[in-house]
């Protein structure tokens, strides 16, 4: 029984951390694109 409780808490944070990682990747990509565009516009 208790394993389901721990599993639920673990999966919850796994989902949130995975989403934060996706957001981090998104920031990295967009900032790179912005920098490239600014360089081309110079």
């Amino acid at each position, binding site marked *: *029984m208790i394993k389901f*409780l721990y599993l639920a808490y673990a999966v919850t944070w796994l989902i949130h951390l995975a989403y*934060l990682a996706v957001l981090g990747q998104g920031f990295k990509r*967009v*900032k790179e*694109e912005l920098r490239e565009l*600014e360089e081309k516009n110079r």
Partner: protein
Amino acid sequence: MLLAVPALLGYAYYLGMYAAPAEASMGDVQRIFYYHVPSAWTAFLCFFANFAASVAYLANRGKRADALAVAAAEVGVVFCSVVLVTGPLWARPVWGIWWTWDARLTSTLILWLIYVSYLLLRKVSTGGQTPVLAAALAVFGFLDVPIVYLSIRFFRTQHPQPVIAGGEGSGLDPMMAKALLVNWLAFLVFAGLVLALRYRLERLRQRVEESRALRAEELPVGSCGLEAQPAVSGRSA
């Protein structure tokens, strides 16, 4: 702020896991409730934010409203995913089954599918009218939120009946209520932080798109945009 959020989440975890008493018939597995229910309420609030921002976008076509709409939908889907995963993990030991097609579970799955469709529409479609179509979908999609919320009041469901404001015989032990509300507060603050991050990312994406559009306008006819050209100011025919 960055330290306060983990501290609040840690305190909420302590309350849910240790301080709140074990439920008489289900035992410790009932503590999943302290993650499941606040995640559901947070998802509802995110979908409401998506709805309000979509209405604002349809009214004035503001880019900020559009960015808030997509950010709120995405964060809402994340919290709704937590609901759909933690629910069966509670149901298996308590009901003996992972899933049943009752009104609450089915309408929640439909809610998740509606907002996943919204996000897919925004990601896959490249037409200029995509934000408008997505906003219209969001306005109608939000109709499922009250259906999910009221489903356990209107229908007999396998899902437990409401324990808060559920009428006679309902209610929570004061320590359980405290654990539930502190967990909700912690998830709300966490969701607010993630929403702010996602909103900022969307605004940056909008800046990239605007820069690209501006650049495409400045490229001379015939270049096909294949090669970078210097921007020409004060251009004449």
